[in-house]
């Protein structure tokens, strides 16, 4: 890997009272790369993302941005660096139209008045460069499908020209077609040279779009895998911590059942 990582976490530790949520976690991500962050419930994925997003700063460890150490202690600091986070609950206002949501909190003004024309023009431009299709940029977000809402939320995070985008379970609760739309969008982000951290429970999605998979288990690194040279079983084994687990036993039973017939 020639390029220096745009974002690198070194030895991140975080403790909540008696619980060691993260211990000595490392993570590197380069421009134009999709890294899937996987792990079982309680493995520390959300905690790690919060340290990057500046919502819950780490107790120990360093964050390096383009090779130099930085402190990310506030959400604002993360945004200034160029880290955008799309949370699972999309944080859209149902009653506002697509343009209103995209520019919420950073409206474009013209002589102190909302410049709807410019915002609409930029919204259409942004959506078309991402090949996002929405019935109209002037309909309330409430009337969009789940996949469309997710793409709007992701598009919104791109308005700040980030270099790293963190997607928290973007395909959870989406249908097949809608999941495909969101995965397409993730690929387009990569084509634009963004670094994407994708948190997901869905192995099929991870295999489909990620370049590397970073596994967390009980708050520690449990391996980083190149997706193209790793089987799904190996990743699952890393997540659950053993080759003998509920998933493999189930597989084995199924295989036996087929053999008997």
């Amino acid at each position: 890997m020639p390029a220096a990582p745009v974002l690198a976490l070194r030895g991140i530790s975080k403790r909540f009272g008696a619980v060691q949520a993260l211990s000595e976690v490392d993570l590197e991500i380069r421009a134009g790369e999709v890294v899937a962050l996987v792990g079982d419930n309680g493995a520390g994925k959300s905690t790690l993302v919060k340290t990057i997003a500046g919502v819950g700063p780490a107790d120990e460890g360093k964050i390096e941005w383009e090779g130099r150490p930085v402190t990310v202690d506030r959400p604002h600091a993360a945004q200034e660096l160029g880290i955008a986070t799309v949370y699972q609950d999309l944080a859209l206002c149902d009653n506002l139209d697509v343009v209103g949501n995209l520019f919420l909190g950073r409206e474009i003004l013209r002589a102190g008045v909302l410049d709807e024309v410019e915002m609409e023009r930029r919204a259409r431009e942004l959506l078309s460069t991402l090949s996002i299709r929405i019935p109209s940029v002037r309909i309330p977000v409430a009337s969009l499908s789940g996949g469309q809402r997710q793409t709007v939320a992701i598009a919104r995070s791109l308005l700040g020209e980030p270099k790293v985008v963190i997607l928290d379970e973007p395909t959870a609760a989406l249908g097949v077609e809608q999941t495909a739309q969101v995965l397409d969008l993730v690929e387009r982000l990569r084509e634009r040279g963004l670094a994407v951290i994708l948190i997901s429970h869905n192995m099929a999605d991870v295999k489909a779009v990620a370049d590397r998979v970073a596994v967390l288990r009980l708050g520690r690194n449990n391996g980083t895998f190149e997706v193209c040279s790793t089987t799904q079983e190996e990743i699952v084994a890393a997540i659950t911590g053993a080759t003998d687990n509920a998933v493999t036993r189930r597989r084995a039973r199924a295989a036996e059942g087929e053999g008997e017939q």
Partner: protein
Amino acid sequence: MTTDLTPAEDNGRPQDAPPAAVTTAVDPRLLVRQEGFAGYWSEFGRKLRSGELGSLPVVVGLIVIGLVFQLKDSAFLGAENLSNLFVTAAGTGLIAVGIVFVLVLGEIDLSVGSVSGLAAAVFAVLNINHGMPEWLALVVAVLSGTVIGALHGFFFARIGVPAFVVTLAGLLGWNGLMLQVLGSDGTINLDDSGLVAQLTNHYFTDISAAYGLATLCVAAFFLFSYRDSRRREAAGVPSRPLSEIVLRTAVLAVPAFVVAWLFNQYKGLPLAVVIFLGVVVASDFVLRRTRYGRTVYALGGSVEAARRAGINVAAVRISVFALSGTMAALGGMFLASQINAANQSSGAGSLLMNAIAAAVIGGTSLFGGRGRTWSALLGVLVIQSIASGMALLGIASAVQYMITGAVLLAAVVIDSLSRKTQKTAGRV
């Protein structure tokens, strides 16, 4: 590389030159409006079916009310009755403008009636009993409404008490303070020729005033629409065709000039109507064209989303309640002007319900996030028409309450149903 850009298929295709495709790619699922009037009507039909009724029900309601009362008593649509109707509507209407802001936020303000009464009492005591100059007493009275509203907002936004409870306490408490301020007499008469008396009693008798205002409004509407449309064209985003702008201007011009003509048949253009219209236009501008207004809508949609977008939630909430208190106090001045006195029943009775009903009947959603200040104008006209028509026919206030209640219920039912339809129609 023309139009067959279904999302599932353009996956593997290298699409590195995106902006060029802007002109050609038309997805069949996109809502593309046809040009001209046919397109306008099909768009209108689509909106109706999907529950975006806007102010249509209230306009239809106004026409029905007008026809019914006109058939019963031909004086109803006469110049005198309509002119008085508009003047009486101004006080409640101003209060309803404040209510619209609170409803858009997704909250409720039950104290506006008491606050309007208290403001009238404060003015009367300062001006009549203590001899304070009238303009200063007026400013103090209106600002007292601002302070009271901000206090409600503080308890709601900072302490976390539900707005319903805070303003319910205000409903009682401020009414008590008003009785205290008025003292043992209970009624303070205002100066007949004073500033406040003029609010509802002054008319611009020159016929050019009413026609001039109507012309100004229509011309301003046309010019702003036209300029907006040109800018949209230049920016390459969808714009209204000139024919549609002309049509909309005509739809506005007809009632504007009819009302102007009516005013001139009686005493001329009422000052109260000028102020009320000015407040409605200004508050509509604030709500829909400024960053502040956008944050109010955003809070009505999702508090969490607004907070994450960096909006100072508590400050916006406090400011909205302060605005509601200010409008209540201002409305109280107009109501005091009508009876030329502040008395123990100021701000009591059905005033609170009428103000809330006006906002809701006009199309502002009780569920937050939707509504415009124009709905205060339309809604208060409905309420006042019913009251005026019933008074003309000599119907008892008992029946009047029941009918106003039924109209309010109908408005809320329409609101709830249109919300439902919007949700189902939207999810393709």
